[in-house]
């Protein structure tokens, strides 16, 4: 039981019920696709994921931090659902009193209008969020307007290709066109090779 926060709950299911009451997520319990808003998924007794709309995310995250005790931002990253034209941001928050994790998941359009994919920044909620957001800008092309140094290269320098963590960036193709293969490499498929050797004319 976390006592020092406004909302007390003892297990993940209870937490989700409160989130339903507060209107953050839908009551539906069936397993839907991860990018569907309102989806909830209890992975284990200490880990759940909820999917909310971009507009609701910051509010929910702030509530979880200040009213439910999820004070630790474990990670912030994205999954590219290219076939749906969406990224799914995951804010993983941890409650140090109950040792629960909740993943707040936010689908955002991969290429929203002119500005490109973007999301509200949370650098003012956790100081290290700025680093995550800088990396997401660089690796996925997701913008977080107002986040410190968000436009500065983080890992890549002088990169002018597609943001490399996007699914359409093909590492193998890139490597094949950028570098040269080692000469002297060629292989054979056993079945094909045996056909040529043992029954070429059949």
């Amino acid at each position, binding site marked *: 039981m976390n006592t020092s926060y406004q909302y007390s709950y003892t297990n993940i299911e209870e937490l989700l019920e409160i989130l339903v009451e507060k209107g953050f997520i839908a009551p539906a319990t069936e397993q839907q696709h991860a990018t569907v808003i309102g989806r909830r*998924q209890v992975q284990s007794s200490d880990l759940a994921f909820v999917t909310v709309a971009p507009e609701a995310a910051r509010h929910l995250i702030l509530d979880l931090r200040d009213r439910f005790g999820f004070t*630790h931002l474990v990670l912030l990253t994205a*999954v590219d659902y290219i076939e749906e034209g969406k990224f799914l941001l*995951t804010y*993983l928050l941890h409650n140090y009193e109950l040792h629960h994790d909740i993943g707040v998941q936010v689908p955002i359009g991969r290429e929203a209008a002119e500005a490109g994919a973007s999301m509200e920044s949370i*650098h003012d909620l956790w100081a290290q969020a700025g680093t995550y957001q800088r990396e997401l800008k660089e690796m996925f092309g997701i913008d977080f307007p107002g986040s*410190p140094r968000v436009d500065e290269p983080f*890992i890549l320098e002088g990169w002018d290709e597609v943001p490399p963590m996007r699914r359409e960036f093909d*590492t193998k193709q890139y490597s094949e066109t950028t570098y040269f293969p080692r000469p002297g490499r060629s292989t054979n498929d056993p079945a094909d090779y045996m056909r040529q050797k043992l029954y070429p004319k059949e």
Partner: protein
Amino acid sequence: MTNAPIIPLTDNHQAGRRVDLSSGKYLKLWQGPQHPGITGNMSLELTVSGDEIVDLRTHVGYLHRGFEKLMERRTYIQNFPIVCRICVPEPDFNEYLYAATVEELAGIRVPERANWLRNLTLEMARLASFLQWIGGQTGAFGMGVIGQWGITHRDYVLDLFEELSGGRIYHMYIIPGGVRGELPEGFEERARAVLDKVENLLGDIERAMFHNAVFKDRAKGLGVIPREMIDSYGITGPNARAAGVARDVRKDQPYLLYDQLDFDVVTASGSDTYDRAWVRFQEIHQSLSLIRQMLTRMPKSGPIHTQLPNPLHWKIPAGQTYRRAECTRGEYGYYLVSDGSGYPRRVYVRGPSYTHAVALMESMAVGANIADVAGLMVSFHTYPPEIER
């Protein structure tokens, strides 16, 4: 000496921008990318006034290998040999967490003895990593001799890894389903001998490092992390415990067999470089004890691996999970997303250095002395390879 309050990054950022380099009052200095500590390649861009740092920017990218991306085009079994390469001094946490997340989504149970062997290697990895850190911490303060002892004793631990797993650095021992080999004949005796040797060294280290006027003078009061910064900066592990925050995944969310083992969560209150070092030093003792307990209590036989589906066309049900473990630097975690195919949809590796070496370092260095930057960096015990995965 800094005793920085919470400085939101925006402010820090603006403070940096206010520096007018043309005024002649400031100098730019680059430290790295060749190992500012001894733990990996990254560089620090210092703006100094005299020998005092007024601004610091971290630069990573010298080690980027794109593991997370590479993993998306490799099968679940093919990823097993590459995860260990994310963190050189402590590869085993990657192996364990990757296996644990895959097993969770695939619904695979690991035999008990395999869990003991996994736990043993994780604690051995902790020991090796801390011994290496001693090398970095003392070396950064000009006490390289002590560092050599640490590095040498780490090598004895690596000898044990070599005979257990067949590799010194990249063990590739923990594989989805279990582990890849039994303890070799006579391993327990040799392991105990190494533990005794390390324990013997620790006495000397305590006298030569912690009761050393030079070390005390330089480390005490350096890089004090205030309690308020712990959550805001996502600080975990010994860095948090030295600030009196008793958090340890091994106790909080026990994994493997930690709930059956006897150990203490070591804390301190000073939250400076000296206290962080002291916490780590105490944890080496804890680690020795944990390894001894495991050697004694581990079942002497039993299966070490569960038969997996054929790894060549192994598909894992769609789902996502996050699992964490306490490595020497704090919370190490794997976030795995499966879309039901034979390849992971996304693997995110959360290394503690990600926050400790970038946002935290940038804040903590302001006001420090140039000569202390390396010591400060090592006091966060950061490994750049896990920043850029």
